[in-house]
């Protein structure tokens, strides 16, 4: 994986030193909160409901064992023994104390990590497919691209004061696991007629209060043109993006108001006028970055399949986990393991320090020292030899990390919501806990099949509710928590924004409504293989709606 060069290391240390001095000045009274706030936000430090919160960047969700172990140390030494993995592939600590934050940042710098650009109107942490470098369907590893973008965008003087925050996602596979169509810029790797890899460039996607599916602004961009073309997009956005209204400042609004054609024309004009070679990445640097992401040397000898089959036949829980939590690796002797951070009744994305340490150990021992954080708030061991799966499962099961629910109904995305977040209008975590308990039965979950529930505690949509097959949005309705349900959202290459189903539900109504909805789906599906989303697309909203709102049906 990527290693800091001298410049990176020095830059991060300098920032920590600066921030330490800024904290001192805030504490001794020479900085007011108004002066300090933008500085702390630039270093990932937020103030939430009960405490400060530190958001640590995990670029493109890639970590090694040493880094994960350091995250555990931080959780124990300066926090309350756990951390929360987010839909932005970051980790958040919920209880740091202001005087400790510079020490935490130094501890992060010790393992080449930081909290820079996790906040503010800049280009945020670039996210990528969590199966990058391992997936069977991949054209190319998207992480060198993501790293190149990270270097290009970090402290880029032109883009430090954008109209609003800016998020970029990259996937190296045609199957989009990085939600590229819901980002300001999404890059999807494809091949041109000659077979050369390049990008489909998607612009203007996003969630929040005005959800939009991104649009293709360039059907094929050669790899070498990446930085000049993105720089052209950023310039157009910087010049024409609205600054008069925070809610209309994202690039999606510019694309919506001015039309894709207009934005495309301006970008192409800017691109044509640019001194391309001056902006384009130095091929030597690209090669250097790529070398860091070279595929690990895999042991491709045949797997002892008989032993594996025997283990499956004697342990139904292991069998279920094998069926649900593995993804296809490009090497047939290997598998990609999803470690569920969604135990039944747990808080989605939370992991204790002990759990982090175990994952670090397993990664070092079995996965070429690689770990990924997925936007679905799970962890991933990307390169596991299939022979090792029984041992890995046994270790995970002991630590409550082996729930067999990847992609199933209890694999719920939920933002921290009003249990932590100062912006929240309602809680998300208890809603997720309730739903997951109702569908706890592994057999029932497998019968239901792929079903993605995503919950946000406010209109900002950090819980991706707009693109959940079932989306749940928590609101404050006259001093009471109320939940709006959307149906039919899709986060993949066939992205769609969910449609509102009807009136909002009280907290205690949500769980029973989900049970009715799922029962209706099981009734309506044509075959056992027709997923919830497919059934919804085939039949439309009406029958699902009447399952959600029986009173409307009874009145009719």
């Amino acid at each position, binding site marked *: 994986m990527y290693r800091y060069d001298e410049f990176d290391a020095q830059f991060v240390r300098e920032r920590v030193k600066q921030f330490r001095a800024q904290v001192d000045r*805030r*504490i001794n*009274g020479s900085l*007011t*909160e108004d002066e300090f706030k933008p500085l702390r936000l630039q270093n990932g430090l937020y*103030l*939430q*409901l*009960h*405490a*400060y919160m530190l958001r640590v960047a995990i670029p493109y969700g890639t970590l090694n064992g040493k880094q994960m172990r350091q995250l555990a140390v931080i959780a124990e030494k300066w926090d*309350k023994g756990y951390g929360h993995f987010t839909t932005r592939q970051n980790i958040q600590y*919920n*209880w740091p*104390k*202001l*005087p400790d934050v510079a020490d935490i940042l130094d501890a992060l710098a010790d393992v080449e990590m930081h909290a820079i650009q996790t906040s503010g109107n800049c280009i945020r942490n670039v996210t990528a497919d969590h199966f990058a470098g391992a997936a069977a369907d991949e054209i190319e590893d998207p992480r060198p691209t993501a790293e190149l973008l990270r270097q290009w965008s970090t402290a880029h003087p032109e883009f430090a004061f954008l109209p609003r925050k800016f998020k970029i996602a990259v996937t190296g596979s045609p199957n989009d696991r990085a939600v590229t169509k819901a980002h300001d810029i999404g890059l999807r790797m494809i091949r041109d007629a000659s077979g050369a890899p390049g990008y489909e460039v998607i612009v203007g996607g996003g969630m929040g209060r005005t959800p939009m599916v991104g649009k293709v602004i360039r059907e094929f961009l050669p790899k070498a043109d990446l930085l000049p073309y993105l720089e052209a997009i950023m310039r157009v956005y910087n010049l024409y993006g609205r600054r008069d209204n925070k809610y209309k400042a994202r690039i999606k609004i510019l694309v919506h108001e001015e039309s894709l054609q207009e934005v495309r024309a301006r970008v192409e004009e800017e691109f044509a006028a640019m001194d391309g070679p001056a902006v384009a990445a130095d091929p030597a640097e690209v090669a250097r970055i790529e070398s860091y992401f070279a595929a690990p040397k895999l042991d491709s000898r045949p797997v002892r399949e008989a032993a594996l089959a025997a283990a499956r036949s004697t342990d139904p829980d292991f069998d279920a986990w094998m069926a649900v939590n593995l993804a296809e690796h490009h090497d047939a002797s290997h598998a990609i393991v999803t470690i569920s951070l969604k135990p039944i009744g747990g*808080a989605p994305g939370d992991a204790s320090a002990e759990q982090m340490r175990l994952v670090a150990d397993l990664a070092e021992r079995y996965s070429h020292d690689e770990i990924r954080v997925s936007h679905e708030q799970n962890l991933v061991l990307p390169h596991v030899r299939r022979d090792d799966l029984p041992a890995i499962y046994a270790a995970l099961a002991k630590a409550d990390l082996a729930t067999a629910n990847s992609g199933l109904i209890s694999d719920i995305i939920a933002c921290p919501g*009003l*249990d*932590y977040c100062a912006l*929240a209008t309602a*809680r998300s*975590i*208890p809603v997720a*806990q309730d739903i997951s308990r109702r569908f706890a039965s592994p057999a029932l979950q497998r019968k239901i099949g792929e079903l993605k529930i995503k919950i946000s505690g406010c209109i900002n949509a950090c819980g991706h509710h707009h693109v959940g097959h079932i989306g749940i949005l928590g609101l*404050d309705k006259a*001093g*009471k*928590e109320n939940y709006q349900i959307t149906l039919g959202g899709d986060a993949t290459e066939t992205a769609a924004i969910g449609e509102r189903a009807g009136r909002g539900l009280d907290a205690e109504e949500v769980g029973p409504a989900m049970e009715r909805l799922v029962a209706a789906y099981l009734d309506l599906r044509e075959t056992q293989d027709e997923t919830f989303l497919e059934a919804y697309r085939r039949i439309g909203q009406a029958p699902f709606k009447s399952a959600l709102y029986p009173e409307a049906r009874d009145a009719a």
Partner: protein
Amino acid sequence: MPKPFTPQVVTANDLFDGDVVYLTAAHGWSREHGDAAVAGNEEAATALLAAATEQPGKIVGPYLADSAIGADGRPAPAHYREAIRTLGPSNRTDLGKQAEGAA
């Protein structure tokens, strides 16, 4: 007829650890909602907030929050958001004020 005034308290977060604090009648800060000074009218509320704003070295982000009167006759949160702030995360009753028995 003007809308009746809902009693208000001033709340903020502690500068050092971010913990939820309430402005008391003596213009000090308490971690318990019950100790909060209650403003019964607009003028008193403005004065309380002004007193809080003069102490930027101790707290962050003071604001007025609607308050009710609890069973013990002391001020108590009126809205669920403020109630969660007096407790801690509802899914982790081992953390926050609720764990310290200060709720």
